[in-house]
C-alpha cells in the first residue's frame, strides 16, 4: 500500500466519524495548548529576567565584600568566592581599597554600595526607605533607567532620583508631575553633646536617647520606572538615589546594622560592599582573582546568572510536567477512540484483508489515523495556547497597570515551541496508535467476515 493511499484511507475514515475525531483532537488540542502556554510562560519569565540583567549592566559587575562571615541575607547559596589564602588578613574595604580596585586593568569603575535608612517625605506624606548613594557616572552607564526628568549631572548636584513606586506611595500618582517637587530626607546621627552624660542602664526606663534628627530638602530631578524583574544584589532596587557628594552633607550614622560593626578589622569600618564594573566580561576572572588577592570576597553576577538559569530549567520542568498531565489524558483519549474504531470497523478490516491487505497495510492505516489526530490537535493546540497566553497577558497587564506596573510580556514564543509542540503531539499520538494498530492488524478475517 502506497503512503499516499494510506493517508487517504486514514483521512477518509476520520472524516466519516467527524464528531469523534473532533472530540479526540480537541483533547489533544487542550493538552498541547496547556503545554505550550506553560512552557512559553517559563520562557517568558526567563527572557524578562535575563533582559533585565543585561539592561542593568550587572553581567559586567563583580561585587566585592570584606572577608569573613557573610551577612545572613538573601540567597545562602550565592556563589561567593573567599579571599586567596595568601592575602592579608586585615584588609579593610575602605576608600583606599576602592581606589586600588579602580586602578586594576579591565576595571571601568568601582564604587561603594552605600545606603542608609531614612524617613522620606513629600507634601506631608512619609515613608521609611533605604537611600542609596550612587555616583552620577554609574547612573550614566545605564544602571538605572530614568524615565521621567533626568539623571543628576554630577556627584555634587543638589538633587535626588526617586522611583515611580515611592512617588505613588507619597501621593503623586503621575510620575512626570513629581519632577521638580521637593523631597525631604530625614536621617539620624549621634548627638555628641548628650553622649557624655548617658547612662546605658537607664535607656529603657524613659531616658532620652542621645540622637539627633535632621531633615534635608532636595529637588526631585528624575523618576525611575518600576523594574519588576531587576532582581539580584547590586540591582538598583532602592527607591531613592542620591549622588555621593551631596550625600556627604547628610549627617548620619556610618553603619546601617550591628553586623557592620561586628565585621570591623582593627577598629576600622570600611564599606560593606563595592560594585566593580568591568570593561568586558572577559576580564571577570582576572579582576576577581586580583581582588581576592587583596583580601576580599567576590561575587560575580555572571556566575549567579548561571544559577538562575539552572533554576529556570527546574521551573520549566515543573511547568512541562503539569502540561504533561493533560497530554497523558489526551493520549488515553486517542487510544480509546482508535480501539472503538477497530470494533466498529471490524468487518471493514476483514474485507481489506480478504482482498489482499497485509498486516502492515492495516497497521499503517490505523497508525496514520492516530497520527493525523495528533498533527491536527497539535497545530490547533499551538493556536489555543498562543491565544490563551495573549488573553492572560492582556488581563494581567490591565490589573497590574492599575498598580502602576509597566507593560510586560509574560509569555515568550520562540518558533521552536510551536515546532516542538506539533512534533511532540505527533509523537504522542503515534505512540498512542501502536496498540490499536497492532490490534487491528491481528483481526482474523474469517471471524470478521462471518455471516451476519
Amino acid at each position, binding site marked *: 500500500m502506497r503512503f499516499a493511499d494510506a493517508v487517504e484511507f486514514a483521512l477518509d475514515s476520520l472524516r466519516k466519524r467527524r464528531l469523534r475525531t473532533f472530540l479526540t483532537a480537541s483533547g489533544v488540542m487542550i493538552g498541547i495548548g496547556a503545554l505550550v502556554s506553560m512552557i512559553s510562560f517559563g520562557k517568558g519569565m526567563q527572557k524578562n529576567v535575563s533582559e533585565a540583567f543585561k539592561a542593568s549592566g550587572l553581567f559586567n559587575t563583580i561585587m566585592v565584600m570584606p572577608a569573613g562571615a557573610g551577612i545572613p541575607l538573601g540567597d545562602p547559596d550565592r556563589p561567593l568566592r573567599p579571599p586567596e589564602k595568601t592575602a592579608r588578613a586585615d584588609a579593610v574595604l575602605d576608600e583606599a581599597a576602592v581606589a586600588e580596585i579602580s586602578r586594576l586593568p579591565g576595571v571601568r569603575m568601582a564604587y561603594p554600595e552605600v545606603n542608609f535608612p531614612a524617613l522620606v517625605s513629600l507634601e506631608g506624606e512619609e515613608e521609611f526607605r533605604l537611600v542609596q548613594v550612587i555616583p552620577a557616572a554609574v547612573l550614566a552607564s545605564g544602571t538605572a533607567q530614568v524615565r521621567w526628568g533626568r539623571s543628576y549631572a554630577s556627584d555634587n548636584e543638589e538633587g535626588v532620583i526617586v522611583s515611580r513606586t515611592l512617588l505613588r506611595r507619597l501621593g503623586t500618582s503621575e510620575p512626570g508631575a513629581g519632577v521638580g517637587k521637593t523631597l525631604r530626607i530625614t536621617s539620624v546621627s549621634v548627638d555628641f553633646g548628650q553622649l557624655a552624660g548617658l547612662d546605658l542602664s537607664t535607656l529603657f526606663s524613659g531616658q532620652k536617647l542621645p540622637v539627633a534628627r535632621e531633615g534635608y530638602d532636595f529637588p526631585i530631578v528624575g523618576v525611575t520606572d518600576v523594574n519588576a524583574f531587576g532582581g539580584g544584589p547590586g540591582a538598583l532596587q532602592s527607591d531613592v538615589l542620591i549622588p555621593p557628594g551631596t550625600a556627604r552633607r547628610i549627617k548620619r550614622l556610618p553603619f546601617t546594622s550591628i553586623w557592620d560593626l561586628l565585621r570591623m578589622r582593627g577598629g576600622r569600618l570600611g564599606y560593606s560592599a563595592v560594585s566593580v564594573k568591568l570593561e568586558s566580561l572577559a576580564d571577570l576572572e582576572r579582576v576577581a582573582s586580583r581582588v581576592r588577592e587583596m583580601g576580599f570576597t567576590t561575587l560575580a553576577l555572571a556566575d549567579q546568572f548561571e544559577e538562575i538559569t539552572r533554576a529556570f530549567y527546574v521551573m520549566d520542568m515543573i511547568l512541562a510536567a503539569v502540561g504533561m498531565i493533560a497530554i497523558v489524558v489526551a493520549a488515553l483519549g486517542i487510544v480509546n477512540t482508535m480501539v472503538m474504531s477497530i470494533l466498529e470497523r471490524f*468487518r471493514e478490516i476483514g474485507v481489506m484483508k480478504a482482498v*489482499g491487505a497485509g498486516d502492515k497495510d492495516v497497521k499503517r492505516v490505523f497508525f496514520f489515523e492516530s497520527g493525523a489526530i495528533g498533527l491536527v490537535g497539535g497545530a490547533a493546540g499551538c493556536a489555543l495556547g498562543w491565544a490563551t497566553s495573549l488573553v492572560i497577558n492582556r488581563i494581567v497587564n490591565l490589573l497590574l497597570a492599575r498598580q502602576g506596573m509597566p507593560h510586560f510580556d509574560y509569555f515568550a514564543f520562540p518558533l521552536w515551541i510551536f515546532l516542538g509542540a506539533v512534533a511532540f503531539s505527533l509523537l504522542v499520538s503515534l505512540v498512542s496508535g501502536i496498540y490499536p494498530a497492532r490490534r487491528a492488524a491481528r483481526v482474523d478475517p*474469517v471471524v470478521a467476515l462471518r455471516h451476519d
Partner: protein
Amino acid sequence: MNKPPLVRTQSLAKAYLLGDVRVAALEDVTLAVGEGRFVAVTGASGSGKSTLLNLLGGLDTPTGGTIEVGGVLISAMDREALARFRRFGAGMIFQSFNLLPSRTALENVELPLVFSNVDKKERRRRAAEFLAKVGLAHRANHRPSELSGGEQQRVAVARALANGPRLLLADEPTGNLDTRTSREIVGLLAELNRDRHLTVIMVSHEESLVREFAQDVVRLRDGRVIATESLA
C-alpha cells in the same frame, strides 16, 4: 489432460477449539481441481463448505494436511505471504457481498489494486474496465446502498478479478439473491470460467444452479468428502 491441477489438497483438516472441546470442521479432505474447471461444493450447513473455501482462499490456515495452488504450497505460508496470495492468487466473493459501504462501486473494485501498489490512474482504468465487464459501467459512482443485490454481487465479482487471479472462490454467492438474479450471477461466473479460462470453486446448496452450470460437484458431510462427481 496431463496438466497438473491448479488446486490440490492432501488430507486437509481444520479443527477449532470450542472451550475445551475440539471440533473438527474439516477432516481428511483430498481434492484436485483442474485449471479452468467450474467446481461446485455442496453440503448441509455446518458440513465445512465455507471452511474449505476460506482455507483455499488463504483467509484461514489448516490444522492438518496441505494445500497447493498453482504449484505453490500455501498451507506453509506466513501471514505476509498469505496476504500476497489473497491479493494475486485467488479472488473471493461472499454471500453478503462485503463491499465497503462508504466507497463507490468503482472504489470497491479498486481496493485490491490499492494493496498491490498500482498507481491511482491505472487503478481507475482497470477498475472501470472490470466494472464494464460485469455490465456495471453506468453504476460506477454509486455506493453499495444505491445498488441492487445483484449489482452489488457483480461489483464484488469485478473486485475479485481486479488483480487478475486464476482462481475465483465464491462462498454462497446467491444466498442473498432472488432466483432470477441468482441465475444471472452464477451465469456470469460460468461465462468468466468459459471465456477467461478462470477456475471457479463455488459453494452452493442450490442443486438446480449447480446442475445447470457446474462441471464437477464435491459433496461434503460433517467435514468429509462423501462424493465427487463430474457433470460435464
